[in-house]
């Protein structure tokens, strides 16, 4: 595409790109605007003109006839479940990826095949029995019930296996001659070299876990372990909806992950190059 670009192209292209950007992020802007709008403008004006914190107040403190729902707790729950689940997925993936890329053992091929098989296997069939397993293990309505069934990511194993393959064996051999243990090599030498891929894997796993609804909805029953998604989905019953607070809750659900992503966007750009190959 080099060579035929004329000068007048640029402003047009940037305008187009900016308009696209605006369309892509408009739903977020809409959410924020209407979460702050006065109640008789929510969903009635395109662009609200008067603003208030009433929606947030209603959400967090309740109203005369409305007990506040545990939004703060749900936020912390979501945080905790997402982080634990993500870290476990990373740990299992790093271990398995290292074994599959650097060790020679009988059965390795079989393990590789099992992973491939699972990757292409439609997981929909597992929904009901997984629920029953969680119940049998006594994990229904607990954090572990939400975390453990999501503690392995086949994609992450795949990513790490491929990345570790690229790391030269000489490096590992050299460390071994210095008397380093395998764990030491993995966590002190190999992993720090994989920072960009780790960021990518972390971000993607975090994002995926953060927006999960179906599984959490099946496992959570009490107030204690509610996650943000489940609470938000439950807020709309037959007894009348509150659009303002709904937007406010959506903001609470969305903002943290956007901040996390934007803060890490530089690593993201580096890592994504590898991830996409």
């Amino acid at each position, binding site marked *: 595409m080099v060579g035929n670009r004329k000068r007048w192209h640029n402003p047009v292209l940037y305008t187009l790109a900016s308009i696209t950007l605006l369309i892509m992020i408009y739903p977020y802007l809409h959410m924020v605007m209407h979460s702050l709008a006065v*109640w008789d403008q929510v*969903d009635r004006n395109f662009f609200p003109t008067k603003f208030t914190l009433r929606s947030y107040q209603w959400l967090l403190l309740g*109203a*005369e*006839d*409305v*007990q506040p*729902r545990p939004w703060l707790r749900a936020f*912390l*729950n979501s*945080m*905790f479940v*997402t*982080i*634990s689940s993500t870290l476990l997925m990373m740990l299992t993936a790093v271990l398995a990826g290292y074994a599959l890329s650097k060790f020679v053992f009988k059965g390795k091929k079989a393990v590789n095949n099992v992973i491939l098989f699972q990757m292409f296997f439609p997981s929909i069939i597992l929904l009901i029995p997984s*629920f029953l397993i*969680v*119940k049998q293990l006594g994990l*229904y*309505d607990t*954090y572990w019930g939400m975390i453990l069934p999501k503690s392995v990511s086949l994609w992450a194993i795949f990513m790490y296996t491929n990345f570790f393959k690229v790391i030269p064996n000489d490096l590992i051999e050299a460390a071994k001659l210095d008397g380093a243990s395998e764990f030491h090599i993995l966590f002190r030498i190999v992993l720090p070299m994989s920072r960009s891929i780790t*960021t990518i894997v*972390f971000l993607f796993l975090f994002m995926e876990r953060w927006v999960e609804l179906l599984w959490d*909805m*099946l*496992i*959570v*029953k*009490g*107030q*204690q372990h509610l996650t943000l998604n*489940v609470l938000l*989905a*439950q807020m709309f*019953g*037959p*007894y*009348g*909806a*509150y*659009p303002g607070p709904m937007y406010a809750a959506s903001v609470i659900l969305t903002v*943290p992950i956007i*901040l*996390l992503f934007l*803060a*890490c966007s*530089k*690593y993201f750009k580096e890592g994504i190059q590898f991830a996409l190959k």
Partner: protein
Amino acid sequence: MYKCKKVMAVVLTAGLASAFLMGCSQETTKTTTQPDGTVTIDFWAAPNPPQQKYWQQMADEFAKENPKVKVNVSPMPESPSSEAGIQAALAGGSAPTISENISRGFAAQLSDSKALVPLDTLSDWGEIIKNRQMNNTISSWKFADNHQYVLPIYSNAMLFAWRIDMLKQLGYNEPPKTYGDVMALGKKLKDKYPDKYVWANPDLTDPTWWKRWFDFFMLYDAASNGNKFIEGNKLTADDTSGVKTLTFLQDLGKNNLLLTNQSTDPFEKGTSVWTTIGPWTFSTWKEKYPELKFNESYVLSPPPVPDGMSTENVKTFSDTKGLVIYAQAAPEKQKAAMQFIKWVYSKPEHDQKWLEITNLPPARDDMNTNDSFKSYLSQHPELQPFAASIPNGVPPVDNAKFNDLQTTIGKQAVNPVVTGKSDPAAAWNAMKKELQGALK
């Protein structure tokens, strides 16, 4: 680069901190009996906020007098309905001790799966019934196996609300009473305001079972003068009134008086002039639409009836719910639950408080005679029509297969008739055929 690390550090700390916090506050409810003999019971309140408020207050007061029993009140999960939420909890083996918001049909289904405690086998049952003056009410709640599984809490005849302010602009001083009146009003409304509708209700095209309570059954109960739609395992629906009900719905649709698009508060915003209403709506209105005033902006009326029928004592659907104790709860919890229920219903003041907070009429024999209820109602004219309609209330279908049955009513009859895909008589017969198949 540093930003990312910092934010991640914050996120991780927050996660761990929350883990710590959660860890501390958790697990208090899992064990049944604490070493000091305290029993904690879980009470699931209906998703309706005022009901949560009521039970929370009751639990707090009860705690003052009974330090050995702790009542944990929380709203029941709706995923996607409160019934489904309870079923999933039962399937997960972690049902609460008590929950309210149980209809008779649902109780029948649950008792078939041995999920409920027969309340009459627990001590104090007789005393509760006597204290709360519900000997008459309770007799109709006996189940096929001669046990009582539900303690009815309220029984609320559903009504319709009309935007009287808009009706007045059309020359009406009172709401229409028959199908013909409604159609005539609709024509006048369309002439003046082509963009407005008589009824805005997307539920009419939704087959979800419980939606039928608030459209089909209200109209059918009125049209059939309280005929029981299904009795035991037999379909006893009345053909003539059924077809008339469906024809009315179809006429509304055909004349463009029905809006089935998804809309936000259409009645409150004046997009439509008619809506189904229960007393729980008033507290929401107070907060969101304080400008809506009884007798100025809206009035209440029973369902319209087919032309030529008497418009006195019109029957309507009665939303009747009660509380149950789950068999999964440990015996000492069941006992403590009974203790709590007995305490709540030992004093009429508690039922008065119920009425004040939730606006729902308590299921008591003396609801319309007891002075304390009377005086409250006289101060709240918008509740009087509900109280007056209690004798005209027809309880819901109490078959254990209520979910499938009522889904069929939607799928075969109401939904296709409203959208004009099928004509009332054919739809009615198709529905009957499927219902009879399901009831076998």
